[in-house]
């Protein structure tokens, strides 16, 4: 029975992906007449032709997203691990006070609107990449998780390094960081995933089309608020009309692609990190 339940659930997890892939390879006329199906009536790559006929917009969005993801993950990991390190040191006097100072932000917040007004009116980050990058760098949960990982590193390592005359930053950089790789990997994945999948901050802060990250571009195309700029008439002949429905699905595939290919490799680290975190409580 277990096998059946698990198989059904796994199939349900795959089904939507399959429908999108099938939709992206269908002929537009079939979709308009019969709707999306599990198997395309007529196999067609028109949608992909349209997407790649003038890929500038998607390449641009890829650049924005990759740039944000890399910078955000590296900076975020750096700041999170530094904070986690300080809070994990038992000989740090203000440890509990600062830990609560950070933890309290998960309990109470000003809410979306004051946060938005701060970023737009006071920091003046409207339509700036900073608005996409900075507010997502750190989260209290990540710092707490990091602190818990680092707590398991024996104090004697820090002490012996101190005796050898190492400064605090050297200890953190040369000793603690290399010993915290599982924690760093897990939090790095969390950060990377949240930057890659972010559409909300672009939705509220970004107005220039060329600054759209991938997921927001997809959102706009799905909502039909924007049409992908494909130079179809020039490239594919005059009788070719833009396949709107299948195009949406093709863009969804192109935009999601790397995650789908990377996830089996990434998943292993995730499971490892989560398992360590869960067992430690």
């Amino acid at each position, binding site marked *: 029975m277990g096998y059946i339940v698990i198989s059904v659930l796994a199939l349900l997890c795959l089904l939507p992906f399959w429908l999108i892939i099938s939709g992206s390879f269908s002929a537009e006329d079939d979709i308009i007449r019969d709707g999306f199906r599990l198997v395309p009536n007529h196999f067609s790559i028109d949608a992909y032709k349209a997407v790649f006929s003038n890929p500038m917009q998607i390449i641009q969005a890829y650049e924005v997203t990759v740039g944000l993801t890399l910078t955000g993950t590296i900076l975020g990991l750096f*700041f999170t691990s530094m904070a986690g390190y300080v809070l994990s040191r038992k000989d740090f006097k203000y440890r509990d006070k600062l830990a609560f100072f950070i933890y309290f932000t998960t309990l109470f917040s000003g809410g*979306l609107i004051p946060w938005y007004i701060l970023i737009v009116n006071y920091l003046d980050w409207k339509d700036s990449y900073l608005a996409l990058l900075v507010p997502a760098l750190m989260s209290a949960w990540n710092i707490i998780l990091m602190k818990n990982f680092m707590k398991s590193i024996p104090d004697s390592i820090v002490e012996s390094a101190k005796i050898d005359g190492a400064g605090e930053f050297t200890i953190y950089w040369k000793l603690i960081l290399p010993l915290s790789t599982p924690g760093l990997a897990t939090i790095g994945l969390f950060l990377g995933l949240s930057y890659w999948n972010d559409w909300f901050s672009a939705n509220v802060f970004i107005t220039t089309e060329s600054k759209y990250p991938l997921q927001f571009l997809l959102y706009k195309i799905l909502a039909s608020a924007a049409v992908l700029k494909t130079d179809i008439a020039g490239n594919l002949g005059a009788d070719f009309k833009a396949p709107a429905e299948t195009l949406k699905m093709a863009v969804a595939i192109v935009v999601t692609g790397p995650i789908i290919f990377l996830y089996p490799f990434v998943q292993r680290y995730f499971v490892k990190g989560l398992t360590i975190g869960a067992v430690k409580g």
Partner: protein
Amino acid sequence: MILPALLFFIVFSYIPMVGVYYAFTNFSFDGGLFGSPFVGMQNFKFLFESGALYNLTKNTVLYNLAFIFVGNLLQLICAVFLSEMAGKWFKKTTQSIMFLPFFISFVLVGAFVYNLFNFETGSVNALLRGLGLQPYDFYLHTAPWKYIIVFFNVWKGLGYGTVIYLAAIMGISDEYHEAAKIDGANIFKRIRYITIPLLRPTFVLLILLSLGGILKGQFDLFWQIVGNNGMLYDATDIIDTYVYRSLAINFDIGMGTAAGLFQSFFGFVLVVTVNWIVRKVQKDYALF
């Protein structure tokens, strides 16, 4: 070395807390924070009397309850089944597949919903037409969305939660199972009398912990699935979507901040209460 983090939280968390003052004003963009006229509790009063607050709170709480219970239960079942499976290949493959939805963006989830339920071209309606039945316009009826939203939320978190429960199951000592096997217990008996009772504390605590956040919504999920569809507000509007609308569509800053403050304040009270209960049940698991 902790300075960047402290600065970050002061700027992005503590300074906006001052901004809850907007909730007590009739906000105007010219006036700014303290230039807008002070109106006291009027925003709250309006939210309360218009019935908006009641409906929003009800939706938020009920959805979260459904997410928490259905989600945790399924995750637990999956973890128990997976842990008992012998075929390594089958186990690994299905677990990977169930983890897949966790990695994709809510925008893609929105694409799935569009693909499935869209009136003209959605797969469900294609199927209905294929069977010779009347197509159904999902976007005009409130009834199905409860299930659709709960389904996709549970769907997205299934793999992740299963891993957490699997870790807890792995933490159960093998000796229990060995002893039971010698006594002649079959696999179902062992699940029933060993795995489930030993997992109960983890289950209860995970549920308790998530109850603290019951007023917080999943903005991404709701917005990508339903969007700003006024027809469906009764069934799909939660505090987070209301606050977002106040900001981005209606420009009703005072009212939106008031709803946000209500959410934060009662969420805070709830977390403190839940934490107090957890402390009574199992001291080690308390948050603070």
